[in-house]
């Protein structure tokens, strides 16, 4: 056991492991690229949807049920399905990651919108703001903390799941996990897993800190 951790330590810090196309640096960049792009696409879909449902109050059941749908979604199954339907490309990976991220974004955006004090919305309308002005100047800024939480959760989930890119022969930190499994190289598997966890934790803590800084004037 001790030897395993020692080897893991050596693996994580060795110069050889950090350089080249199969190096940690490059794999990390790939991993972040997949994750950020998938989260961005998910945000482009989920944010307008959540804002629309929250602003109009129509279709709330979609926002609520999407959360449980998201939890029940078999990510690997989806990758295989799209892969079988569309052939080998990054498309199945992105479809799966986006499908994973959208529910968290929609649900949190919707929750943020419904948490806005109805008196404040009433006052905004009463001062003569039009619907889109209430949305842009009042609802959106007030829902922002929860919206950002949704984006953060989505990104963390995506980072943790982006290992599946390697499952269909692409890069990212998942490479170490799948290669390691194929080569029965436990240190490599563990190294990949630890790196993924590390990235997720660093992003989570960093973004949570950013949120606290941005919303330091808020009470709740």
């Amino acid at each position: 056991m001790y030897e395993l951790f020692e080897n893991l330590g050596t693996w994580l810090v060795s110069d050889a492991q950090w350089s080249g196309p199969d190096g940690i640096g490059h794999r990390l960049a790939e991993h972040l690229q997949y994750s950020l792009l998938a989260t961005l696409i998910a945000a482009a879909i989920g944010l307008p949807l959540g804002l629309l449902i929250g602003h109009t109050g129509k279709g709330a059941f979609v926002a609520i049920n999407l959360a449980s749908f998201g939890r029940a979604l078999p990510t690997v199954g989806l990758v295989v399905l799209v892969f079988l339907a569309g052939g080998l490309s990054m498309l199945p990976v992105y479809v799966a990651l986006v499908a994973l991220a959208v529910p968290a974004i929609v649900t949190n955006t919707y929750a943020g919108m419904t948490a806005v004090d109805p008196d404040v919305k009433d006052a905004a309308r009463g001062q003569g703001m039009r619907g889109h002005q209430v949305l842009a100047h009042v609802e959106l800024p007030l829902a922002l903390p929860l919206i950002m939480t949704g984006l953060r959760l989505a990104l963390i989930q995506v980072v943790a799941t982006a290992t599946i890119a390697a499952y269909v022969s692409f890069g990212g930190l998942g490479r170490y996990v799948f290669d390691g499994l194929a080569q029965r190289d436990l240190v490599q598997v563990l190294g990949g897993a630890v790196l993924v966890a590390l990235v997720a934790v660093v992003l989570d803590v960093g973004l949570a800190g950013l949120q606290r800084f941005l919303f330091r004037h808020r009470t709740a």
Partner: protein
Amino acid sequence: MIQFDAVHKRFPNGAEAVHDLSLDLPEGGVTVLVGSSGCGKTTTLRMINRMVEPTSGTIRVGGKDVQQQDAAELRRSIGYVIQQAGLFPHRTVLDNVATVPLLLGHGRKQARARAAGLLETVGLAADVGKRYPHQLSGGQQQRVGVARALAADPPVLLMDEPFGAVDPVVRSQLQDELLRLQEELNKTIVFVTHDIDEAVRLGDRIAVFRTGGHLVQCSSPTELLARPADDFVAGFLGAERGLKLLSLRTLAAVPQGPAPGGGGTWTLVLDEARKPLHWASEDGEVPVRPLKDTDSLLSALNESVASPTGLIARVDAAGTLTGVSSRDDIHSHAGQAHSEARVAA
């Protein structure tokens, strides 16, 4: 200034909020809509700025049918204050107050300068402008709400139970402040409350609503108290409505005589500046609350009942003793106030 013509409001659930309301509110002055909850007073108010649309009938503001106007533009031209102030928690106080000028397309600098002036108008220190709403007390928030409503200098101000959520002391201060503001600005104010004392204190006219959205009576506070239209109104005004009428009269007309000096049982003790301190006798001291000419007959009556001599101490604006008035004189003026009110009504 504001006319309701055969206005009905029925909500989708079938509840009738306002029943056949026809009411004409002249320019200037405070009209208080009063009644128990669910009587349609808030709905009536919110139909003026189209926050609620009437089922039938017309409402005109300044002669123009509100239904024919763009709702958002209409609302920008009418001040609106609500119970919990409804301030935008993510904006500074100054930017809250600048809301409507900014919506009207004024420059940010100009809007903020206007907002800063208004904070002073409603009695807030300039540095409050940089704070966020949650850093203010309930009373301060309500003042900011009033400032925000006044920002575009609208001729009409709608106030929906604006002082309902603050404690009685602050409430009383805010009422005084509103009366002072109104003296300065002379807006047409429509004010909703369920508190009849607040209505009597603030209203130039009081409109009493009954459950189901029926307007029962709309008249001056004096007339309302002297001649309630029916048992419902009389019941709403409460058993002390005779005393409430006295709260509308000042004690200026009550005659005063010299204060009793030594010799009697009780002596009014003064300080060097001839300000009343207390009543004194062999048995001890009783505090005195001196009254000015602008104080109400009600407070005079109250003070005379509490006074060991039945006399009240009268002072000028500086607090210097001008004389005393007897319980009998106050009583007879109270009776006179009532008979005058009956004749006038």
